[in-house]
């Protein structure tokens, strides 16, 4: 009897330990990502100077005349992400204000899941849409638009990000205490005034968190830009010509058969490091902003 109880106890301990290992695996994943990126990036910078990486205006690691300036990839990433945010931020915010402050409950309940569908569609599908529907459509208005460009994938990426912004901002607005709204109404404010001058400012850190997360998502988005933005690293802010983003470059190299261990192979890790740390910083900021509202109102 006692023996069985002890055996049971040991079994329980073993189980608990294996569950602990499962939890610790997530730490190992992060550790693995950082280790892999840093290791290859250090090897990369043994051959290429940091100064060249950050200041050279050309990115041509796959050509005979090699240049390793990341600026063109950064400008491509910035351009497509900025266009995406310009589309997603106003639209997402208007949707959030309407759904949280004006829409009747049934409309709200039915609209939210439909908006979420946008976030669940595979990104290759968005890429197809950007290349073969949006670009030709835009070309009828802007004839100088090239077949690959930053504008169409940027806009389509914006549509993909709308549910992220609208649902996070709506959550933040929902968390604003009802008493603030009632106080403003008692002072004679209309619903729109309450929404724009009380609820939005009160939910500001939540909206800012949504913005940062959206930027991070846009920077890391891969397939839309790999399909529709072209693969020509170019230091420009012109949305009408082909560009290449950091993510699209990684895809481009991965598709070719670059031998492992070469400098060309290491470039994708150097670019990946840049990508990882910029999204990490944005995510951390976004998270700390969201925690701040939770502390304030709960």
């Amino acid at each position: 009897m006692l023996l069985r109880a002890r055996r049971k106890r040991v079994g329980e301990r073993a189980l608990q330990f294996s569950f602990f290992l499962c939890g610790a695996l997530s730490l190992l994943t992060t550790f693995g990502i950082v280790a892999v990126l840093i290791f290859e990036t250090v090897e990369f910078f043994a051959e290429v100077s940091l100064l060249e990486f950050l200041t050279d205006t050309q990115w041509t690691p796959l050509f005979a005349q090699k240049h390793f300036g990341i600026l063109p990839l950064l400008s491509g990433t910035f351009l497509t992400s900025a266009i995406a945010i310009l589309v997603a931020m106003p639209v997402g915010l208007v949707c959030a204000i309407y759904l949280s402050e004006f829409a009747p409950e049934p409309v709200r309940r039915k609209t939210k899941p439909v908006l979420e569908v946008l976030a669940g569609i595979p990104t290759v599908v968005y890429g197809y849409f950007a290349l073969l529907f949006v670009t030709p459509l835009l070309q009828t208005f802007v004839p100088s638009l090239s077949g690959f460009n930053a504008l169409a994938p940027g806009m389509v990426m914006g549509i993909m990000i709308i549910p992220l912004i609208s649902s996070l901002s709506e959550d933040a607005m929902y968390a604003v205490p009802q008493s603030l709204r009632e106080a403003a109404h008692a002072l004679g404010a209309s619903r729109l005034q309450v929404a724009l001058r009380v609820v939005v400012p009160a939910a500001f850190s939540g909206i800012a968190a949504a913005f940062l997360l959206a930027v991070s998502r846009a920077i890391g988005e891969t397939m839309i830009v790999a399909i529709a933005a072209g693969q020509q690293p170019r230091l420009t802010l012109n949305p009408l010509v082909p560009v290449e983003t950091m993510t699209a470059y990684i895809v481009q190299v991965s598709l070719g058969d670059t031998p492992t261990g070469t400098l060309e192979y290491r470039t994708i890790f150097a670019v990946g490091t840049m990508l990882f740390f910029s999204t990490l910083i944005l995510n951390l900021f976004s998270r700390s902003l969201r925690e701040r509202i939770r502390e304030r109102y709960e």
Partner: protein
Amino acid sequence: MRPQAAELYRMLTLRHWTERLFKIAAVATLVIVLATLAALLLNAVTDGAGRLSWQFLTSFPSRKPEEAGILAALVGTTYLMILTAVVAVPVGVGAAIYLEEYAKKGWFSRVVEVNIANLAGVPSIIYGLLGLELFVRAMGLDRSLLAGALTMALLVLPIIIIAGREALRAVPPSIREASYALGASRWQTIRYQVLSLAFPGILTGSILALSRAIGEAAPLITMGALTYIAFLPDGLLAPFTVLPIQIFNWVSRPQKGFFAAAAAGIIVLLVVLLLMNALAVYLRQRYQRRLYL
């Protein structure tokens, strides 16, 4: 007094109309967004419907656009998702059980929690770089189905853990206390009470996490999955391709004929996604009814 009243009246009317205008603009914005969604889906369906046929589903890719089929990608996606689930679901649920049922609220569980939230925000292509270096090169798995599944498992793990924790948290503490009161041990309580109540939530969460993974092309391309495969994977170490990679491959060809194949591939991918989501909804409803009656 009178001019002031007129002024007030004008202000109120103006206010009334701005509010009206805002509402109309907001509804119009929503309608435009939903119309874009409809255009996106309709565009793929109209482009691809003509190309969709039994021959398309049962043929291998080809140099001739009209003969190209999606069999290798469809089978590859199926194998990859099953393997990913086999690896990721037990580990994810285990981690969720540890964090919800065992871990004390100390610095360690706090670190793990922040870490999981951050992992969920890492761009998927970064997981591809990790998979390339760790599974493909260091572990020598090459560009195989197994390497792909492990990469995908790491990608969906944070989502499964988050969903699993939510499902476990939804089980009322009174159930656990009742079980302890009857003399059950911790694991017995978890195994027979908590898990059986949380099961539908965990299942739905896992299916939804996998349906996220099924549309991912970037990490697999990065770890080196092939884009052109004219045979079926015959083992864990066989090379493979998946639906989104096949679609990407067809979209990036210069010949127009492949665009129709890409659109037909998109229809297949969307149908698979729809089926998975429907399954998740169905399972949730079915099990919930059984449990609470």
